[in-house]
């Protein structure tokens, strides 16, 4: 009762990174609220998964294991969450703002008549005072999220309804082991009690999922290209620089819309959030929505022909020049001066 619960999402049988990130956040919220951290895992062949989850500080792991529950489908998963939450009455529920979380979260919130805040970038505990009623709500979840296309930041609260539900995009929260020795308990749910036969009405006909090829989020160096890179050929220079100095290639949405690279490389509010040691922004103007995904990089270099590009304001180094002139020089120096 009254705990913090994280829905752990499975991505082709692997627990998604965003779920670990949310467990880390969930653990710190639970500590502040002095309650337990619970995790919920739904799928098939889930024996042993607790070993991966307990180190993140999970006190209770609910498992629903049934071959009909993998891969994810809307109605059966909704049914388990709704029934379990009606019994357990968590105060906070967190899930990834992923294809799964954005399909499942609103469905569950609608059934429970509880509020859901989308795409939070920060979650904090705080008190809320309604001066008119002289009422103070203690220990609410402050759900902070961008809206209006990223032009504003709103703090959303759910004063009265429980659970307070929020989704968070991958990479926004940091993942960290809480305690490798931490032990929780596993509760195996009797699936037939939580899901009715009628929930299996939508049939999976075909499914095609590719292995994830790029791992931008965990790369300590990112060479990111924007619309200013100008062509697929010029993007080749970015790949070369990334390969030489040991990094990954990222992109702005305009570069992706122009067809220079695939959308799995998009960095920003509607892409991935990164915080590498070094971020080299090539031909990127630096609109709010892009900055939202890379602002926490330790060192930012901007290569831009326009000295007044907005990104230059947040860059540690600004090289005024053309991408196609500057990058070959960087590659050349590096090759000549390292073994």
């Amino acid at each position, binding site marked *: 009762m009254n705990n913090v619960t994280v829905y752990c999402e499975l991505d082709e049988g692997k627990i998604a990174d965003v779920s670990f990130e949310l467990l880390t956040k969930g653990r710190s919220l639970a500590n502040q609220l002095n309650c337990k951290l619970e995790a919920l895992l739904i799928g098939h062949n889930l024996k042993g998964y607790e070993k991966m989850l307990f180190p993140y500080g999970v006190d209770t792991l609910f498992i629903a294991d049934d071959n009909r529950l993998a891969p994810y489908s809307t109605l059966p998963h909704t049914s388990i969450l709704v029934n379990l939450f009606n019994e357990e009455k968590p105060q906070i529920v967190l899930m990834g703002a992923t294809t799964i979380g954005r399909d499942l*979260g*609103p*469905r569950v919130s609608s059934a429970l*008549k509880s509020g859901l805040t989308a795409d939070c970038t920060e979650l904090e505990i705080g008190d809320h005072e309604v001066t008119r009623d002289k009422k103070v709500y203690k220990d609410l979840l402050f759900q902070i999220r961008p809206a209006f296309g990223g032009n504003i*930041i709103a703090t959303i609260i759910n004063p009265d309804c429980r659970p307070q539900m929020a989704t968070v995009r991958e990479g926004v929260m940091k993942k960290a082991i809480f305690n490798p020795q931490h032990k929780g308990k596993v509760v195996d749910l009797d699936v037939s009690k939580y899901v009715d036969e009628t929930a299996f009405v939508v049939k999976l006909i075909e499914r095609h999922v590719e292995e994830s090829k790029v791992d931008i989020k965990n790369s300590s160096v990112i060479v990111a290209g924007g619309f200013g890179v100008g062509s697929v050929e010029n993007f080749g220079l970015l790949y070369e620089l990334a390969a030489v100095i040991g990094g990954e290639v990222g992109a702005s949405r305009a570069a992706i819309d122009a067809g220079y690279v695939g959308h799995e490389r998009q960095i920003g509010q509607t892409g991935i959030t990164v915080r590498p040691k070094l971020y080299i922004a090539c031909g990127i103007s630096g609109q709010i929505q892009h900055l939202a995904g890379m602002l926490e990089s330790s060192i930012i270099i901007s290569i831009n022909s326009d000295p007044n590009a907005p990104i230059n304001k947040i860059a540690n180094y600004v090289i005024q020049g053309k991408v196609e002139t500057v990058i070959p020089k960087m590659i050349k120096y590096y090759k000549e001066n390292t073994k």
Partner: protein
Amino acid sequence: MKEYQIIVLAKQVPDTRNVGKNAMKADGTVNRSVLPAIFNPEDLHALEQAIRIKDQFPGSTITILTMGPVRAAEILREGLYRGADAGILLTDRAFAGSDTLATSYALSCAIRKMEKYDIIICGRQAIDGDTAQVGPQVAEKLGIPQITYAEEIISLTNDKIQVKRRLERGVEVLEASFPILITVNNSAPHCRPRHAKRLMKYKHTTTMSESQEISEDYLTASMGNNQIIMEWGVNDIECDRAQLGLGGSPTKVKKVENIVFQAKESLKLEDNDEDINELMKELITAHIIG
């Protein structure tokens, strides 16, 4: 041949894609009045899917349902120009301040009032609230299945629909029976443009409130209406008022802020060999690269 009753859910939104400086008020809130109000872009993708069904099954009907202020009737007309058959504007002060849950409740009550429906099609996401929650919440309230992130309707038979949906790194084809709610992804085809004949036919279509503004005479005003665009208020739907509007919204906006970035003290370099070599040397020495 089968005929489908299709409902398209569409929202009128401020165009947040090009928010200039004058659109932000000093207190950090958005001055909606300076932003053009448009048909939510992804809802046009939804409308296109509906029109494609109608191309294939000509007896089908497309009704656009929108909840919003009186001026939201503009997008209903826009929908008529492109291929919809009718529009419903759900408008009432009682709906003001709705969060996604209250919005989906009001929409679901309006849908229940409509006689029969086979397919409800939504956009994935509105560009102002940006939550992508309303579609699935409506489906849950109506107790029907949903297929989100749809890209293409693969097949339609008397009692089954197959839909291809986009996943993060792949696709999935799902099969369901009717009624079903679908949310259409932005990777689905764009909507066809206005049709000249339809534009001529529908440009004088108005809602009750609009025609009353034009003509004081209630009788002629309501006759001009032709029931192509209907206007419903809270009294026209069966609902629990406690679940509507601000009062029926569990989420509240506590605070809204403008985004300000901390400017850094940056080092300006030229694109010559000397400056670039110096920078690279620094990065290598500090073990940031290499």
